């Protein structure tokens, strides 16, 4: 088994993993700056370890700190696109509630 096959699951081995060459990678490592990106499908390479990314989730950019264990995953896996569901709770002030009850 080739090492590339482990890295690129389900993708042809000759293509290798899909990644985006970020230009400011070295500066980001040294200056602890974060890289803003929309490339959610970019595979995390070993050279990305320690870099802070701001990954787009469709609405805004969420911070992702790359660790050693994340290598081989995609950037988008760590930037969630869905909110947790919760029932809407509308808070009415006390007087307003009294008025509502009196109307009924």
């Amino acid at each position, binding site marked *: 088994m080739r090492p590339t096959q482990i890295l690129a699951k389900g993708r042809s081995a000759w293509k290798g993993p899909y990644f985006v060459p970020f230009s400011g990678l070295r500066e980001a490592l040294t200056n602890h700056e974060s890289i803003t990106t929309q490339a959610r499908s970019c595979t995390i390479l070993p050279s990305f370890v320690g870099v802070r990314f701001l990954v787009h989730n469709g609405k805004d950019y969420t911070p992702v700190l790359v*660790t050693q*264990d*994340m290598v081989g*995953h995609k950037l988008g*896996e*760590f930037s*969630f696109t869905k909110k947790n569901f919760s029932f809407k709770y509308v808070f009415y002030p006390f007087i307003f509630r009294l008025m509502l009850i009196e109307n009924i």
Partner: protein
Amino acid sequence: MVHVLGINLPDGHVVKFALTKIYGVGPHIANRLCARLQVHDKCKVKDLSPFQVTSLASFLSSPTTSPPLPRLPLASPDFTPPPSTISTQELQARFNEQLKQRTIKSTDPLRNLKIESELRREIRENIAHQRMIGSYVGRRHAMHLPVRGQNTQNNAKTARKLNRLERN
């Protein structure tokens, strides 16, 4: 009733279906195991010889350390038999020499077979890895929800049953 690794295989079942009772052995691997043990297609569990049962148990307990399968190649199409004047011992010696020269890589598909507790542990570790790095997959497992984008408005019953951090 035959017990293999603490799993009992019912007597009346056909071997290749009975083997699928083992966690991690499906119809495909069951067929391969049968071929390895030279169990015929319609053999039932009660018809297994004691040797086959012991070899099955020894193979399943440690597939990686099991002895490799003997590979005796068939004759090529342009094979001409040697003249009958040569003695059988000499023929045997030649054959053994040829065998030594051949270096076949072991391509045993059952070598990396994982069953029962070993497989369960592997699955648990994979989920724990996803959870530890904080990926979407790990989060969905922790929430008992489908991982691969299935609908959750209704049902999602399998996910609710299976998607746990600690699988039973």
